C-alpha cells in the first residue's frame, strides 16, 4: 500500500479507505484488458447508454440507424476497450464516452455498418425510441441533450438504488412518501401530514428525512464516483451536471 498514497483513486491515510469505482478500475487496467475492467466497463455502459442514443438521434439519424449505430459502438467499445484512448483520457467516463462516440461516428461507422458485429451484450434496449419520443421537442443541441440526459440518468440510477435499498429493509412505502423531501425544503412539506399517512410521529418523520437525505447524498456521490477518476473530481462533476441542467 506504500505507493497508493499517490494513486488518484485512493484516499489518504486519515480515512483508511481504499475506494475502487468502476471507472477507476477501467483506468487502472489501462492497456491490459483484464476481465475486471471489461465487466466494469460493461456495467457502466449498461447504465449510461441512453444519453448516447439521444445524442445520436439528435444528430439526425433515424431510429433504426441510431439503434444499430449505438449498439455497434458499444459492442466495439467493450470488445476493443479503445485502450489507447482510455489511457490518455484519465478524466471522466462521461467525456470519454462522448468523445469516443464522436470519433466512432466520424471514422468508423461506415466500416462497421458493413460488418455488424452485434456483440454478445445488448446494451441498447428496444424501447430506446419510445423513451426518445418523450424528449422535449425544443432545439437543444445534441451535445446538450447528451449532458442533460446524463444528469437525469444519473439521478434515475441513484433513486433506483435508494428505492431498492429501502425496499430491502422493508421500508419501500416510507421511501415513496419521503422521496419528495429530497427536493423540497421543510416549509413546503408538512412532516405531520406525511407522518399521518404512514403512521409516524412528526419527530420520527424528521429523523427519517434526515437519514434519507444523508443516504441520498452518499448515493449520489458514490454513483458519480463510479464515473470519474478520483474522489476530488466528484464535486466538480456535480457542479458541471447542475450547470448542464440549469441552462
Amino acid at each position: 500500500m506504500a505507493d497508493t498514497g499517490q494513486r488518484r483513486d485512493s484516499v489518504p491515510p486519515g480515512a483508511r479507505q481504499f475506494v475502487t469505482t468502476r471507472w477507476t478500475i477501467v483506468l487502472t487496467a489501462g492497456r491490459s484488458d483484464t476481465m475486471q475492467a471489461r465487466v466494469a466497463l460493461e456495467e457502466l455502459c449498461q447504465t449510461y447508454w441512453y444519453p448516447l442514443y439521444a445524442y445520436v438521434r439528435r444528430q439526425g439519424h433515424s431510429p433504426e440507424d441510431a439503434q444499430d449505430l449505438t449498439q455497434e459502438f458499444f459492442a466495439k467499445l467493450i470488445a476493443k476497450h479503445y485502450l489507447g484512448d482510455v489511457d490518455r483520457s484519465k478524466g471522466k467516463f462521461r467525456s470519454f464516452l462522448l468523445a469516443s462516440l464522436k470519433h466512432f461516428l466520424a471514422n468508423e461507422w461506415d466500416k462497421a455498418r458493413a460488418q455488424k458485429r452485434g456483440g454478445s451484450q445488448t446494451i441498447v434496449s428496444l424501447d430506446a425510441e419510445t423513451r426518445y419520443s418523450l424528449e422535449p421537442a425544443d432545439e437543444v443541441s445534441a451535445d446538450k441533450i447528451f449532458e442533460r440526459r446524463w444528469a437525469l440518468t444519473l439521478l434515475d440510477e441513484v433513486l433506483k438504488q435508494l428505492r431498492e435499498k429501502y425496499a430491502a429493509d422493508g421500508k419501500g412505502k416510507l421511501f415513496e412518501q419521503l422521496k419528495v423531501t429530497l427536493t423540497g425544503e421543510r416549509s413546503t412539506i408538512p412532516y405531520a401530514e406525511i407522518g399521518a399517512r404512514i403512521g409516524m410521529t412528526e419527530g420520527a418523520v424528521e429523523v427519517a428525512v434526515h437519514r434519507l437525505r444523508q443516504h441520498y447524498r452518499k448515493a449520489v456521490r458514490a454513483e458519480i464516483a463510479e464515473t470519474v477518476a478520483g474522489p476530488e473530481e466528484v464535486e466538480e462533476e456535480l457542479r458541471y451536471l447542475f450547470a448542464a441542467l440549469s441552462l
Partner: protein
Amino acid sequence: MTTTRQCPQCGAEMAETAEGLCPACLLKRGMATKTGSGSSGNVPVLEEIAKRFPQLEILELLGAGGMGVVYKARQPQLDRLVALKVLPAEAGRDPAFAERFTREARALAKLSHPNIVGVYDFGQAEGLYYFLMEFVDGANLRQMERAGKLTAAQALAIVPKICDALQYAHDEGVVHRDIKPENILVDKKGRVKIADFGLAKLLGKAQADFTLTGTQQAMGTPHYMAPEQMEKPLSVDHRADIYSLGVVFYEMLTGELPLGRFQPPSAKVHVDVRLDEVVLRSMERDVERRYQHVSEVKTAIERVSVVGAIPQGQISSTPETVARDLLPKLMVTAMAVLMGGLTMAVGVALAVFAILSESPQSGQFWGWMGGAFGCLFGGGGALIGAINSYRQIAGAGDLMTEIGSNWLDRVLGGYALLGGASVVAGVVWSSLGSAGRYSMLLFGVIVVGQSALFWALRRPYRVNQSKE
C-alpha cells in the same frame, strides 16, 4: 406534447423529471454539505456577510473551499477592490484557535512580497474569523491548465517567481504547506501571486479532514503533499513546500500528476532533459536528498534555459508586449532572409563568373557546382528562417513562444554554413584569377559573419517548445 411544469422550489422548467422530482433541485441536494439548511458548514449568504462587514461592499462570491470562503469586495473609503476570506465557522469553535489565529495572522501580515497575496487586515466579526487580502484579478493555475493555456515555456517563467515568493517566506519563517495550482494566481498583467500562505497550519488541516463525502471541495488534494507531511503533518519544515512545488511544476509541464511510477517530463513533452533533474530532485521522498532551499530550485531552472520574454498570463495580451516580441522576431526574420538571400545571390554570381571566365573546364564545373549549392542552401535557409519566423509572428497570441526550436536553429545554422562553405569550395576550385581571390575574401567574410550571427541569435532565443 409534454407540458412543462415549473419546479416550485427553484422555478426552473421541468421539461424532464427524475421520478417526478425536479432534477436541478435533486442535484443541488447532492451538493449540500449538511442536510439541514443554513448555518455552519454551508456557504454563508451574501447578506449575512454584508451585515457583519458594514465597512465593506460585498460584491460577489469568488470561491469556497476547505480553507474558507472568499468574497470579492470593495473598500469604499480607499476605493479599492479587496478579497475577503472568511474562515469556516467550525474553526472558531476551538478555544485555542483565537490565540493561534492572532499569532499566525500577524506573521502572514508581515509577509510583503510582490509574488505573495498581501494581507491588509484580519480579525473576528461576530464569531467569524476573517482576512482582508489583496484582490487578484486573474485566474489560478488550475483554471489556466483546464483552459489549456499553459505552455511549458510559461511554466518555466512562472516557477522562478514562485521560488522567489517561497524563499522570501521561508526566510521569514513561514511555510506554506499547501502549494497547489489552486493557490497560485496569475493576474491579467501576468503577475504571479501565491495565496493562502500558512492557512493550512492555522486551520490545523492535517490528514484528519480528508474524507470522500462531507467536504465541499477536494481538500488539499494529497497529491501535492510531501510524504513526510502525510506521515507526520506537524513536524514538517520548509522543504515540504519544495516537494509540492515539484509536483506543481511537473503538472504544469506535462498536464498530468506524477502518480506511481511516472515518466520524467522530457519523455512526455518537448522540454529540456535537464528539467527532469530539477523536477525529480524537488520531489525526492527523502527530505535530505531534496533541494534544501527553494533558491536552489530557481537557480537550477535558470541554468536550464534563459528566458527572454517576461511571462504573460493567457488572460489577455497587451499591445506593448505584442510589439515587444514582434520586433526581435521581425529582426531575425529579416536577418535570415538577408543572409540566405545574400548567399544565394553570391552563389549565382559565382556560377556566372565561373561560366564566363576563362578558367579550365574542371574549374568551371566546380565553380558552377559551388554556386549552385550555395544557392540551394542559402536559399533554403532563408526560406525556412522566413517561414518559421512568420509562423511565430502569426501566432503572436501565444507570447511565450520564442523563435524557432532547437532543431530548427541547427538546421538554419547548418544551412547557412553549408551555403557559405559550398560557395567557398566553388571559389577555390574555380579560377585562381583575380576574380577568384576577391570572391574568396568576400565569401570568407560572409560565412564567418553568418555563422557568428546565427550563433549569437540562438542564445537568447533558444526555446523549449512545448507539445500542445
